[in-house]
């Protein structure tokens, strides 16, 4: 019978209980959605890497021999190793297309996962290309693919298409921000097909004790570092560079994305759970105090305290459990599917499905346990006394004057203000819940706008501040400097060389970008605070994110070398600059040449449109306009818009539910006071204004607290980006205005809707009894 009582009580106070249900629902809905997506990605990442055996170490060098491979294989802790040649070449299609070529002897580590065609067998001729390239360029098995490598043209029959674990995420060059798979690609061929004298430049290694699941643990990182050092010393430490998975762009980016999603998983549900808790406190405290006589009756009839406690705790238990289960099921089937579907364009994995993890069950259990406990604590007050006491109406609260009521200011305040201050002070939890509700609403709204701001700023920052050119002319590989210089002169451009280097500080090695620039006015630099700075012509500057990763600051020493070159240099950090997508070191051409390196620029930045003129030029790979480069943002923005919609909807629901619930509660409690005011001659309009005043104060306070929380949320969100990205959480003034106006409008509308009920307050009815 008590269960029936609970169901009917729930229906009778449906607005209040609905808010508890919705908060529990939304919390788990978002949690389960994000968690199932992140868990799915993590699960299928592990499965994929396990199946294809992603290498644990990549050893780069100039000319590896069989002997080197033998040395590595003889090291304890090495499971398998293979040597190969990895070079950037071209696929000669309608247009020359970037193609990273791998010439292999065997395929036991970093295996191709064949999509179509035949599997690779050592010694067989032909080429295997990534399936996105085949798809976009209209290539299929049996076609002949013409290619060019270091000036040599050759052709092979396409034997198959594949997915490859080292190419889950990859970019054509350092200037690219987002992948556009299919407009460049990668290929695998047998070493016999290498068109020149083979010189192996890479050895991939599979290690004992390092598996392919769940990212690299500290122990695994340690093994990788030790084995990297062991290989370096076994061969010739200055000649080679060993990098682990964490420095491999594809693995690192994909894994960081998963980790970012996992960290986001906890942020939003925490807000909803907090509001659910406040909702439970206000609703259950009021409900049990309203049902005081009923509780006394149940006690008098012989119900045990335990039974009555369970009965009242079961309200929240029931609501949070049904809310949790429904949220989990719906979150799993909507948010998770939606987000994971959008990952398909950014990452090349054969299979990516959502996975319901133990954490989702855990979240339901935590939500239910916390809600039930809070409910129990809220009811305790009415359950503790003897039945004889509970059967009597509660004695009125012993009210004391607060400080403000004792101050001189108090008497100067008008009636409405005094009334509202007293109401807030005497209903602290209810008021706190109102503030929290508005806080949550404005926080989410602000986060939504700030995400858009950040994305907008990113493109402006990249292509309006750091690079002010309108076009980039991309040179063919190994174009001699003299030729590139001619183009630079002709198009009044700035030459830049993009390469890779390895940086070492206190034994910690990181791969990074090496940018060498010639004089010109297109490349600019900004410090940590986004102020324009000029790089020291004689010093090496380091990107802030790289410096933070390595734990260095301006003036500190570090060791570095160009990838593929043995010579280690010792330099000090002359300046720190900020770049959103390229992390590494930057220097002038003069300094680079002084260190006896050849300046081989691969890009010319210009403001002159050379697109048509250079379309058939043999020395030019392509000319890209800023507009084209910015298009790469589109898929990223699409994802961001989706997140913004979710945030705005969540903010709206949160705001409406919490404010409406509190409004109803407040009206019920003030019914008698309002009818008294009516009897005394206050007009309905005046009473509505009094209610509106209080609502305005709480809303203002909620927004004032909510916006900094939103700023924190967005900063936290962008700080979990991969190591290669350094996005700055941006807050435009209009976002503050929109958040303020949006939250206020919502709060005002809810209050208007509610305060209409003042009209229906019946003076006679309310003053009875």
């Amino acid at each position, binding site marked *: *019978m008590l269960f*029936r009582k609970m169901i009917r009580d729930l229906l009778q106070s449906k607005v209040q209980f609905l808010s508890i249900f919705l908060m529990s629902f939304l919390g788990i809905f978002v949690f389960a959605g994000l968690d199932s997506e992140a868990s799915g990605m993590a699960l299928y990442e592990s499965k994929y890497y396990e199946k294809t055996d992603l290498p644990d170490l990549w050893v780069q060098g100039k000319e590896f021999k069989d002997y080197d491979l033998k040395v590595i294989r003889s090291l304890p802790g090495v499971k398998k190793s293979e040597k190969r040649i990895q070079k950037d070449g071209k696929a000669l299609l309608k247009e020359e297309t970037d193609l990273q070529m791998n010439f292999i002897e065997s395929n036991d580590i970093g295996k191709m996962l064949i999509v179509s065609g035949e599997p690779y067998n050592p010694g067989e001729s032909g080429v295997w290309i990534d399936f996105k390239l085949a798809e976009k360029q209209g290539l299929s098995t049996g076609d002949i693919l013409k290619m060019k490598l270091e000036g040599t043209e050759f052709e092979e029959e396409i034997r198959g298409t594949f997915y490859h674990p080292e190419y889950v995420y990859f970019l054509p060059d350092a200037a690219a921000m987002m992948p556009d798979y299919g407009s460049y690609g990668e290929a695998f061929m047998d070493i016999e097909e290498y068109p020149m004298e083979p010189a192996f430049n890479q050895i991939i290694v599979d290690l004992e004790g390092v598996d392919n699941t769940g990212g690299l643990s500290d122990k695994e990182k340690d093994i990788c570092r030790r084995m990297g050092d062991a290989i370096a010393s076994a061969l010739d430490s200055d000649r080679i560079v060993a990098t682990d998975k964490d420095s491999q762009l594809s693995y690192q980016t994909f894994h960081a994305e998963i980790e970012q999603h996992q960290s986001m998983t906890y942020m939003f549900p925490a807000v909803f759970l907090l509001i659910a808790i406040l909702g439970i406190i206000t609703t259950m405290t009021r409900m049990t105090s309203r049902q005081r006589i009923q509780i006394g*009756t*149940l*006690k008098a*009839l012989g*119900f*045990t305290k335990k039974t009555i406690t369970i009965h009242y705790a079961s309200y929240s238990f029931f609501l949070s459990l049904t809310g949790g289960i429904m949220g989990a099921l719906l979150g799993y089937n909507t948010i998770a599917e939606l987000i994971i579907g959008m990952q398909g364009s950014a990452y090349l994995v054969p299979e990516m499905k959502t996975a319901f993890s133990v954490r989702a069950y855990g979240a339901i259990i935590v939500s239910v346990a916390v809600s039930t406990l809070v409910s129990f604590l809220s009811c305790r007050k009415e359950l503790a006394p003897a039945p*004889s006491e509970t*059967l009597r109406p509660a004695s009125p609260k012993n009210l004391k004057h607060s400080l403000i009521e004792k101050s001189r200011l108090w008497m100067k305040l008008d009636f409405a203000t005094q009334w509202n201050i007293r109401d807030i002070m005497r209903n602290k939890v209810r008021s706190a819940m109102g503030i929290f509700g508005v806080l949550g609403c404005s926080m989410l709204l602000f986060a939504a706008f700030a995400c858009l701001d950040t994305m907008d700023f990113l493109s402006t920052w990249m292509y309006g501040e750091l690079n002010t050119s309108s076009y980039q002319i991309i040179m063919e590989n190994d174009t001699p400097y003299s030729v590139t210089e001619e183009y630079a002169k002709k198009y009044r451009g700035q030459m830049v060389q993009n390469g890779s280097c390895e940086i070492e500080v206190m034994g910690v090695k990181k791969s990074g970008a090496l940018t060498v620039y010639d004089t010109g006015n297109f490349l600019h630099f900004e410090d940590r605070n986004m102020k324009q700075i000029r790089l020291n012509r004689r010093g090496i500057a380091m990107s802030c994110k790289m410096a933070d990763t390595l734990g260095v600051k301006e003036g500190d020493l570090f060791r570095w070398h160009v990838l593929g070159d043995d010579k280690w240099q010792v330099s000090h950090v002359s300046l720190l600059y900020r770049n959103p997508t390229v992390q590494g070191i930057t220097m002038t051409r003069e300094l680079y040449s002084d260190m006896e390196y050849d300046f081989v620029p691969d890009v010319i930045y210009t403001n002159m449109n050379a697109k048509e003129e250079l379309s058939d030029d043999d020395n030019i790979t392509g000319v890209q306009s800023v507009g084209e480069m910015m298009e790469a943002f589109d898929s990223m923005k699409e994802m961001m818009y989706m997140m913004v919609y979710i945030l705005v909807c969540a903010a709206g629901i949160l705001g409406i539910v919490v404010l409406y619930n509190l409004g109803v509660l407040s009206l019920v409690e003030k019914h008698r006071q309002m009818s008294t005011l009516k009897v005394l001659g206050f007009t309905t309009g005046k009473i509505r204004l009094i209610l509106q005043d209080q609502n305005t104060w709480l809303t203002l306070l909620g927004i004032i607290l909510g916006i900094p929380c939103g700023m924190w949320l967005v900063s936290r969100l962008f700080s979990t980006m991969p190591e290669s990205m350094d996005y700055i959480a941006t807050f435009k003034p209009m976002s503050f205005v929109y958040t303020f106006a949006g939250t206020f409008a919502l709060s005002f509308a809810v209050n208007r809707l509610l305060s209409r009920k003042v009209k229906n307050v019946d003076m006679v009815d309310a003053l009875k009894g």
Partner: protein
Amino acid sequence: MPFIEFKNVERRYMLGTNEFYALKSVDLEIEEGEMVVILGPSGAGKSTLLNLLGGMDSPTGGEILFNGHDISNFKDDELTAYRAWNVGVVFQFYNLIPTLTAYENVALMKDVRRNVKKGSIWEKESEGVEVMDPALALSSVGLSEHMNQFPSQMSGGEQQRTSIARALAKNPRLLLCDEPTGALDTGTGKEVLKLLQQESRKNRHTVVMVTHNSFFADIADRVIRVKNGTVQSVEINESVKDAEEVYW
């Protein structure tokens, strides 16, 4: 051995630093099956007496014996078991659960016995006494037609009869009534009194009724007058009237 015995019972409250006696040095006896009326003005201590009888409160001094068992030092769960097995309560304002129908309010009593601590002395003493079928309990008070109505759909008299049905459903050895006609008109009040008297006479259940209405003394076997927290007199009524014959 009397069915109920109060020995020098006191109930003291602290009001700030001051002591206040709601009951002081109360001695009284009640026999099983009696219809007892406790009379007194407001604030005399009638309700405190009823609360102590019903195990809804504990005395701060003295002994209360129920069927020979001292319940004055009972812990919370023991008192709950005492109430669950022995006591039925009828309140002045009915105290029905507003979200349950008449039937469901009565059926609650089944839950009471189900959830109470097992193996108590009361359980052994009440062996074979079952909770009545709610429909039967309701028809015994003439509410067969109203079983599916919520309290808000019933008149005051119907609500009080439901309250009595709920109390009787337990087959309690002690039926306590706190101003059971206080909120009813004379006609309906008389119906309620008839039910209570019938319960005492027919089923030999002890009925203790608290009231400030001295006319009710006529239907009682024993009349206890209370004033200022003390028992002023205990009278045995030699010429008990039927509830029909009482007017107020």
